[in-house]
Structures are given as C-alpha cells and as structure tokens.
C-alpha cells in the first residue's frame, strides 16, 4: 500500500487560490478514479476536482470555507501498490503532471480527523410526492389541530418518523414552519444561529465591501414614462412567433448602448491602483441575477451588436445558466457596465452598488401606473424609475445626470433607440 497526495490543480485564468465550498468525500471513504473529491470556488465559478486514482481517503486538507493555494495538497489517498497515476483527463483543469501527485510516507503523515462528517444514521429517504408523512395517528391529529403541515416537519424517529418531540420542537419554534403558523402562539425566542459565510456568499461579501469602500458613489433616481415602450413591447410580443417573450430589459440594454455612444466614459473600468481608466468599445452588460446561492452577474457580451430579440434570447439563456449553476466562468466575467433589476419587487428607488472596477450601474425599479399631468389633465401612465450609480471619482454629477436623462429620453421615445446615428 502507498499513499498518494492529490494536489489542487491549476484551474486556469491565473487563479492562485480557491475556496473549498464542499467536500464530496470524507476520511475512510473508498473512491474510484474520476470520482469528485471536492468542489472549489474560483472568483466566481464552482469547479469540481476529480480523483486521479482509486483508493481510500486518509486525509483531507482543510475545512469547507477555507482557502487553499493552487498546487497545495488536497487529499491523501491510500492505494494499492500497482496503481499508476495517469495524467489527469481533461476534466476541469490542467494538472501539471510532474507535481500532480507524489508519494508520501504514511508514517510521517499525521492524519487529520475527517472534517466533513456527514451523519449516516437513519436519514429518511425522500418521500414521493403525495406520500403521507410517517407519523402515528395521535401525532397526525395533534398536527392537524395546530395547523402544522407534517410534510414540512423533519422526523427524528426511525425511517424519518415524526414523533411528539418533533412536534414540540415545531411548537417551540413556529418560524421553522414555513407555511403554517402554530395557531396564534406568540412565543419569545431565545436562540441564535451562527452561519459561516462561505462560497459564493463570501465572494459577494468581499466584492460588495470592496466596491462600497473604494468607490464614492453618486446615485441619481429618475422617473421614466414607459407607456410607449410597453405598448411597443406588447405589439412585438403578440407577433413574436417562437421568439422569446420580450421584457423591458432588452429595451433598457439597447437604450444604454445608445447612450454610451454619446458618453463612452460610462463603459469603462477604473483601475485605481494603476491610475488609469480603460474604456471599452464593446458594451458587455453585466446582468445582476438572483440565484438560490446569491447574486451572480452573467455577462451579455457585445450588446452593441445585438437586436432586442437577440438580447432577449441571450438574457433567457444567461439567467437560466446562472440559476442552475451551469454558467461557464467566462460568462461571469468581463462586464463593462451592469444593469440590476429587482423585477416586480423593484421598489420606488434603490441605491445600486457599482460592480468594481466598472464606473456605472443602472438599476431598474418596478413599473406602476401613476397619474401624470399632461398639461391639461391627469392621465394614467405606466411609470418606472431608474436608479443609477456612478463612480464619482471619474464621473461628474452633471455627466451622470446627462446620461440618465438620455436613457430616459430614449425609453420614452422608443423609436430613437432604433434610429441610426
């Protein structure tokens, strides 16, 4: 028997360190070649690290949430003597074959205890849709009286059976019941939960802190009458055939592209450490997207070369891949200006934080019908606010206001968006 140390491979893009977001193995597990050992997070994408050989895991480098340098040891695997480490297949990373693995003397190796212990007790198997929860008649009756949906209660008993004690816990902590209050019980709560910030949330946290600390923001909120664009959108959608349904976002993107033509300083990165601004000719719009894990910003590349239909198709594809976690790393980097929208939750105004190192971000608030004075009478119009932030070190307030007004004009007279220069 011998021990093989699997090292953290180079995940490309010049990344020097990664965060371990999930262990797929624990000490004592038998793994086969190509089994996933761990999931690591680069600056934005999650990458799975496969095993290079079969054997038994005897050591894990670190805990979930910790950062490891590329090239450092990830796991030790006890293998039979005749195992040959082949070069890693093209999976997620290019491993340098000369130091991808090495033998270590097990006698000198202090084995760390498993840090990714998963309970292996009698966890209940997921119950099929429509299957009754596992509980005695008295427990079921008590739950019914208390308005507790047993399908939401985790059973601690054998086979996931829900006991009276499990119900007691729900009564003591009604918040745990997602969709069923426990009568009208008002119970003082005295618990606290520490949640370790790891993975994507940690990245978001770092990036927000950086942007907010370094960039002096100026935010302008403006009201836009989107009645015309909504009418146009409805007409286009009626005849769209098999094209994706147009939302207001493609029009806003097109309006931003048009406005940038007049004010190219808005489509730029400010490298403050190096002391220069890099303006871009191509408009790569970052689309801030909420996913189950948190905020990610997939990039709609070359918006200046796309029709609203193309933009709509690309937005559908990007948001879907961001949400289901299949977005490629290159789709999550390289934006030059960002659009953020909370959709129907869009509030009256927001204070968007610039996606560092960009210099501008356009926030879209929700569309509501408001009375509008047209000079003679009040008429109902579809109104939408845009809340845009700018890097005040680079963009003066006047210029920011001009940019916002230009977007407003374009959105209120949609024909202007589609006219040549």
């Amino acid at each position, binding site marked *: 028997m011998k021990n093989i140390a699997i090292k953290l491979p180079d995940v490309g893009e010049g990344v020097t360190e990664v965060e371990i977001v999930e262990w797929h193995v624990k000490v004592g597990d038998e793994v086969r070649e190509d089994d996933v050992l761990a999931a690591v997070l680069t600056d934005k994408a999650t990458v799975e690290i496969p095993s290079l050989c079969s054997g038994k895991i005897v050591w894990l480098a670190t805990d979930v949430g910790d950062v490891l340098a590329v090239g450092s040891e990830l796991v030790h695997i006890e293998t039979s003597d005749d195992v040959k480490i082949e070069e890693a297949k093209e999976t997620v990373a290019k491993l340098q074959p000369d130091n991808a693995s090495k033998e270590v003397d097990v006698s000198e190796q202090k084995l760390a205890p498993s840090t990714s212990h998963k309970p292996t007790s*009698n966890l*209940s*198997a997921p119950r099929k849709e429509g299957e*009754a929860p*596992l*509980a*005695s*008649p008295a427990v*079921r*009756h008590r739950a*019914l*009286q208390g308005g507790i949906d047993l399908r939401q209660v985790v059973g601690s*008993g*054998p*086979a*996931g*059976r829900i006991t009276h004690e499990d119900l007691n816990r729900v009564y003591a902590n009604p918040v745990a019941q997602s969709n069923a209050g426990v009568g009208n019980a008002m119970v003082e709560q005295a618990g606290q939960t520490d949640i370790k910030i790891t993975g994507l949330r940690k990245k978001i946290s770092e990036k927000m802190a950086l942007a907010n600390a370094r960039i002096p923001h100026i935010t302008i909120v403006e009201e836009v009458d989107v009645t015309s664009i909504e009418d146009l959108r409805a007409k286009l959608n009626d005849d769209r055939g098999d094209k994706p349904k147009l939302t207001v976002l493609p029009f806003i993107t097109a309006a931003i592209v048009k406005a940038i033509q007049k004010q190219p300083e808005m489509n730029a990165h400010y490298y403050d450490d190096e002391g220069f601004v890099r303006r871009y000719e191509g408009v790569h719009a970052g689309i801030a997207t909420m996913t189950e894990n948190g905020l990610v910003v997939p990039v709609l590349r070359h918006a200046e070369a796309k029709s609203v239909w193309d933009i709509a198709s690309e937005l559908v594809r990007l948001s879907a891949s961001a949400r289901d976690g299949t977005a490629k790393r290159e789709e999550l980097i390289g934006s030059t200006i960002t659009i953020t929208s909370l959709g129907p939750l869009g509030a009256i105004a927001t204070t968007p934080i610039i996606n560092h190192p960009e210099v501008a971000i356009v926030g879209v608030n929700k569309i509501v019908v408001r009375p509008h004075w047209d000079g003679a009478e009040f008429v109902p119009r579809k109104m939408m606010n845009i809340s845009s932030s700018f890097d005040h070190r680079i963009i003066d307030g006047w210029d920011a206001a001009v940019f916002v007004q230009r977007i407003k004009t374009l959105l209120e007279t949609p024909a202007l968006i589609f006219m040549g220069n």
Partner: protein
Amino acid sequence: MISKKCKLLIIGAGPGGYVCAIRAGQLGVDTIIVEESHLGGTCLNVGCIPSKAIIHASNEFEKARENAKDNPLGIRADAPEIDFSKTIDWKNGIVDRLTQGVAGLLKKAKVQHVNGRANFIDGKTVDVTTAGGIVRISTENVVIATGSKSIELPSLPFGGKICSSTEALELRKPPKKLIIIGGGYIGLELGMAYAKLGSKVTIVEASANILSMYDDDLRKPVEKRMKELGITLHCEAQAQTMSEDGKALLVSIKDKEVRIPTDKVFVTVGRKPNLTEFGLEKLSLVMNGSFLKISNKCLTSMRDVYAIGDVTGEPMLAHRAMAQGEMVAEIVSGSKRVWDKRCIPAVCFTDPEIVSVGMSATDVVKNGIEVVTGKFPFSASGRAMSTEREDGFVTVIARKDNHEVLGIQGVGAEISELSGAFTLAIEMASTLEDLSMVIQAHPTRAEALQESAFSALGRSLHM
C-alpha cells in the same frame, strides 16, 4: 305532517350511520337517524354478524365430526347431528341482542330514531314515510349512509332457489347440493361453512382465480382446504340460467355448457351502493363511478351533505364506515378532522382466514417501491402445532431504504384476531426494527409477526 328540526340528520342506521349518530349525540349534537328497516344495517342483520355466527356453528359441527372419527387427540365421540333451525334461531338471537344494543346506545346518546323511508326534498329537507304518516325533517347537516345491496344477475333473479347472501343466512336447513356464483370473500365464507354443514358445494367463478383481490400465496392455503372439504371449483366459468326443470344450473365452462344439479344457488358476485329510490338524484351530487364522490372530510359536492360507508366506494367494509361515521360526527360538532388513515384492514373469514393490511406484494410492484419481505410459516409455530392447524403464514413487506412497514398479510386459522396487531403496526408507522423488538407472548400465533420481521431483517430465530 309532522315537522322536526335537527342539526344532524343521518339516513341509514348501518354501522356507519349508527356510529355517526352515537358519537354526534355524545358530543351534544342534536341528531336524528332514519332507518327503514332494522337498526344495524346489512352488517348486523344480514352480513358480518350472522355470517360469522353460522361460520362458527359450522366449525364447531365439523370439529365434532372430526372427533367422531379416529383422531390424534384421543377423543371418542358419536357422530354428531345438527338441528340447523335451532342454529338459525341462536344466530337470530345474537342479531336481536345487538340491534337492541344499538337502540340502547342511540337512546343513551339522546339520538332520535325515526323508522321509515327517507325521501330528499333538498339538501336540507327530508321527508320520511313512517307508519304514522310523513315526517318532514329540516336539518343543517345530512349524512348519507344508505349502504349497499347484493348485485343480482339478470338471468338469475333472486327468489325461489336463487338466494342473495341475505337469504343464504336464513335457510332453516343446509341444502344437500349448493352452487355459489362468485368466488369472492362472501361466496367462499358461505361455501366453506355450508360444506362443513354437509352441503355438496360447487363454486362458479368467472375469472381465473378465486379471491382475486389477494396475492397467490395467500390464496393457496384456502384452495387446499377447499379441496379437503370436497368443494368443487370451476374458474373461468359463467353461470347461465336455471335448467327448465329448475333442478340444475346451466354453466358454461370453457365454451362447454355443463348442467350442475343443485338445490340452492347463492349469487355473491358483489355489491352495489344504495343510491336510488330516496330522492338523492334531486341533489345532483358528483359521482365517482357508481359511488358518491367525497372529500377527505367525507363531504359530497354539496355543502353540509356528507356520505359515509358503502355508498362512497371500496373497500366496502363495516369498519371503514364506522371510522368515517365517527369522524363526520366530530366534524359536524366543530372539531378539525380529516381522513388520514394509513391502512384499512381486510379480513376474509374463510378457513383458513386471511388478513391483509396495507400494501400487498402486487401493490409494491405496481408502485415501483423497492422492498424487503419477511415470512414466517405457522408450520414453525408451537402454538399452531398444538392447535392442529399449521397451515398458513405471516408475511411483512417493508421499504428497503428505511424499513418502514408498508404491508402485513397473513393466512391461517383464526388469524383474524391478529388483524389488530397488523393494523396497529402500520397505523403507528412502525419499522421492521420496531416489530422485531416488541415482545410477543409465547406460545401464540402473534409470534409470527415478530418472526416475519426478523426474517425480513435476515435474522430469523425459529426458522
């Protein structure tokens, strides 16, 4: 016309209706129950109770006959005789005692009993034709509990030699030759009882198997015992009509017409709900096939109109009706209740008896659930040996992933008494480990439940 008002009106005083009435009365609900015939319905008067009484008498008579032969127990007895008319009187006495008991319970619960035929005027009003004229009852809630009746074959209408299960339980003499049409549990229970009472019994079953609702291995011990009792079985056979002289039944067996001489024909091909001839069509209730469609609160499609028991569909069993009745009474009184039973036990009082609770082997295959099964034969049971009945077994079916018990079946002498344990095990959401850790008294047949769980866990003790 006499007018009455109540909060709860129940149409039908079978096991569903009378239980609903008693519970509602106990809860202080102003309740009226209407019944055109005897309290207790089919179950008490012409079903469960009288059939069990006759089955018991037939078992006792058969035992006496066995004892008159050379037997291993060393008992010496003369050839017994049976005065079957007296047996029927005894059976009727039991029925009377029970119906009087129901009347007493209704009275104690302050339930008004109106004897007569109901006729719906609307969802809140029912006219009852009684001996003293029509009584109009206005109610806030109504429960339809009118039960079911034997299905009649058009070519063999009831009357004369052709009996439904009702007449089959009233014969004053066992017929010498008896044909039973329908190899379901009712036909077989009666057929085996009459075989023990001395009748030459022939069963005519249209499908390929008797007791088609049960899995093969549960059926086999019953088929073996039928042979021992001299019962002739014709499967895939269709009863046609009586012969012209009325002395035989014409049966087509595999495309050949056969003439089977008989003194009586019992038609037990199933039951259908009683939903006609009391004005129910005026309510235009939503149906589920030939039954009334109900919610998990036994509510029909009309507000405040409930239905329980056989009118609501399969399984048509008295204990299901009782449970529904009890639940509806509580709902009407303002309690929060829903039908959330995990299982309803089914017992077949053949010889040996069959108990089936929860999912069968066929059910789990249909549902694509991975299972483990355990089995314990009574041939390995000390209690079974010492009572001379080693036929049968208990089998338990559980999910493979977490050992949740999904079904328990058994076949064996007097195994109906284990139905309670089987049902409790499933209703309490037991696992195989639970069943294996519960001490069962020795020597009893209940040990088979624990042993079958051991078997499923791969660690049988007595096998």
